[in-house]
């Protein structure tokens, strides 16, 4: 499994996505979104990751091809990668930026979905929608999606609520929604609250209430977890209009910051648990394939 910085050296996002998926799968896998309906709709050529129990052996005898049966829900499975591209997602120091890391993961998931002949789409947002590619199974969808991901630049302030509202409009059917964000400045004053409060938390609950399968990838740089500075630092906010500054000896804050960061992640984990949204914590110095492998393994285990 390649480290994020090594992945960044690969030529294109498509290659990176394939590399991540190959590293993550490294063997048989199952469909990300298992069908629940018994109404047969079509045959589909077997692809790695498909449930072998669904191979239509009669069709195999007839056509000498491995074919699996597809049911109504499966054919209608749609996956949407929702990506936060605000300026804060551009932070990096030793590893790739959070935006790059999220792009790799999003591309890999889209690639995986595309491989299963399912529909994958993209919604990139900051203070406004930056890129929108509704889920589709049409040929070229994947390359368009990769191209859109590669063009994304971190800028603007995050407004995830508005993006999530847009998701509701795009996905009228039950969908698998991958949300990538650092969730910074997306919660109200916590004030001893065990869960994150705010519009984003509310939108996630709403998506789940509509039947969408939501996975929240909480992407953070190691610096935002450990604050590994040891000097007098003049900290400045990254997003436009952010006038917050702080002059401090970083070593004075390390201990308190780590506690604060831990609580921050804990609040979002609790929020997701309450909203039945799957929470995945993503450090940008962890190989994406490793994260994807853990995600897939855990998800298939639930089936």
């Amino acid at each position, binding site marked *: 499994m390649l480290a994020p910085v090594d992945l960044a050296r690969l030529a294109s996002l498509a290659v990176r996505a394939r590399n991540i998926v190959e590293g993550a799968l490294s063997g048989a896998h199952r469909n990300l979104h298992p069908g629940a309906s018994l109404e047969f709709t079509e045959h589909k050529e077997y692809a790695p990751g498909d449930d072998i129990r669904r191979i239509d052996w009669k069709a195999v005898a007839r056509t000498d091809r491995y074919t699996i049966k597809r049911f109504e829900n499966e054919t209608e499975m749609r996956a949407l990668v929702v990506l936060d591209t605000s*300026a*804060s*997602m*551009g*932070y*990096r*120091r030793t590893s790739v*930026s*959070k935006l*790059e890391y999220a792009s790799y993961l999003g591309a890999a998931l889209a690639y995986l979905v595309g491989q299963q002949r399912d529909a994958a789409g993209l919604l990139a947002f900051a203070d406004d929608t930056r890129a929108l590619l509704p889920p589709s199974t049409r040929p070229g969808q994947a390359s368009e999606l990769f191209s859109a991901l590669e063009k994304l*630049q*971190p800028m603007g302030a995050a407004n995830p609520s508005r993006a999530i509202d847009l998701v509701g409009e795009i996905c009228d059917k039950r969908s698998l929604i991958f949300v990538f964000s*650092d969730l*910074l*400045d997306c919660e109200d004053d916590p004030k001893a609250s065990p869960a994150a409060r705010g519009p984003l938390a509310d939108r996630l609950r709403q998506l789940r209430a509509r039947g969408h399968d939501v996975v929240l990838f909480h992407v*953070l*740089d190691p*610096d*935002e977890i450990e*604050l590994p*500075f*040891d*000097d*007098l*630092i*003049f*900290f*400045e*906010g*990254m997003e436009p209009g*952010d006038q*917050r500054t*702080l*002059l*401090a*000896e970083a*070593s*004075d*804050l390390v201990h*308190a*910051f780590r*506690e*604060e*960061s831990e609580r*921050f992640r804990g609040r979002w984990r609790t929020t997701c648990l309450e909203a039945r949204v799957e929470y995945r914590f993503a450090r940008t110095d962890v190989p994406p394939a490793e994260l994807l492998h853990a995600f897939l393994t855990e998800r298939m285990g639930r089936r």
Partner: protein
Amino acid sequence: MHFLAPALLLGIFAAAAPYLIHRIGKRRALAVRFAAMQLLLRCERRVHARRRLREILLMLARTAVAASLPFIFARPFAEQATDLPVVTLDAQSAVIVLDDSASMQASTSTGTLFGRARARAQALARQFPSESELAFLVTSAGAPPKIGELEPDRARVVEAIEATRCSFRSADFTMAMRQASSILAASKRTHRRIYLFTDLQATGWEDGAGLPLVGPPEVVVDDVSGGTQLANRAIVEMRVEPSSEAGPTGIVVTAEIADYSNRATPALGVTLRLDGVSVAQGTVDLPAGGHARKRFLHSLPVEGSSSHDLTVEIDGDGFAVDDRRSVHVEMARTLRVLVVDGDPRTIRNEDEAFFFETALQSGVPGAQLTTKLPDDVAAEALSGYTVVALLNVGRPSTALASALERFVEAGGGLLLTVGDRIDAALWNERLAKLLPQPLGLVRTAAALPGQHGGETVDDRPAERLLPLDRRHPLLAAFPEQGDGLLSARFFKYMLVDPVRDTGVRNVILRYESGAPALIEREVGKGRVMLLTTTVDREWTDLPIRTGFLPLMREVARALVGASDEDDAATLLVGEPRLLSVAGDVQTLEITRPDGSVWIGKREQAGAGQSLAFLGTDQIGLYRVRAAGPDGTFVRQPTQDFAVNLDPRESNSTRLAAEKRPDRIAVSSAGAKPPKHRVELWHGLAAGLIILLLAESMLSLRWRRLAAVEDVPEIGPPSSP
């Protein structure tokens, strides 16, 4: 408060440096565009108060450090009034002279004089300006300089003063001041001073102040006695002499006690101790500033060891060191006399030996006499006697002469008397190594009309003895008029040839003509006495005079070494003790009064038979053991000895004002007291170190990089 270098105080503006550095550092802080500002600000709010407090403390500490540096370099000091001698504000070359003589052991209500002097000397040494250079001497006789060169390191001088202990030696101020002057002569400084800490005892200044007549150095005397004379009583002398009054082993112990005060002491208690045990006590009335003598008559025990320690003590006073005095005595050997009768007669009172034997038997109780004719004397038998008396033996054989030589060399006593039978030439030939002086002609006294008429029945012309020189121990017991001796008449006597004076020969009695009557000579370890007349009535009527018996008794005791006190066994502090390593003695061990041990090897004696022990620095009794080739130590009580205080140290008479060596005005009552500089920068430097430690602790977790300009700003890349 004053400053040595006040111009350096301008550096106080450096106190602003920490604040300026803080401001500059703030501007140069590493800028980081950070996404998680929300988290950062939340935790900052939590630690803000604590961090702010630490920042303020750190700033204060650094400002204090910056401000204190020029303050310290400006060398602040305070002037403080002190009772220490003279002004020391100026850098100077100084020699501290500390009186460590025995008299400084006198106690006062606040301790000993020496303790006070040492403390003041240390205080003075600490107060000299740091540019000063010091040397340190003590005044006890023979003591080497403690620090004999001017030394800039005051701490070393203070340590040397601290390490100094009071001695039992007498003072030699003259030498100490001479040394101090010599040390200061090498200095180029304007201020050259000698600081003398003493009790101002007159003893030790007899040879003058030891200073140049004019010019530097200045001398400052610190009188630690408080200007008053110590009221001291002391035993200044102790003698032990044989005394037949108390029997064969009788001794008389005489202690001379002196008072150095203006108050008489009636019934002062005096105690005599024999081998540590009190054997006699008495009192004496001691006049103010005078002397008194206490005499003890005692009989030494016959049984047991012949060596004894005698100590006399008086009731204690503030100076206890001289309240006791000790003597080591070796009991006289038993008097065994071989009388060689050279002119025997059948009529008893005409016999040559008759009066001599009678005198010894009566005068020396316990004396064992054996009388033989010259031909009957066996040469090898002489060792059984302590004294041999050769009475008018005309022609002693060669064998007898040789035997007598060996006998005397080994420590025996030999009395030679003459008479008509003497062959002077033969004596001079055979007894040449023993005779005090060669024999000459026989002189017959000339008659002087009416000179001695009517004194005796024998009216032959005669001479008498010259007045007695009672300084000789042998004659000390005789009355000044010499009763019984000066009345004796000498009709004939043998002249002796003159010889070169060698110091081992001594004429004890002389005739009126000036011719020697009784001569003594030391030969080897023994002694020879020659009486140039007879011991019967042929040439003199001395045998029938009352002085004959005591004279023969004293002669016999002198010959036997009967003096009970060995002068060499009683020393003053610092005097060397010669110890015999004769025989097969290889090692000597001396145990001092404080229990410390000195070991001497035979090799140290070279070709001689005695070792010099120089470590007589303590008063009391020194015990001697000897070891032969097998290394086994055996007590040698005969070599034990006592060391006493020099009686001069007991004399607490103060030095006369006109003889004081002061060469600088000493502060007097009512005058402005001298001031000393108390340097404050040491304390400030210590405070600075504490500040630096505090600053280090505070900034341990707050290390800053001042030069951060070259560090690139961290943040999101301008382009992916």
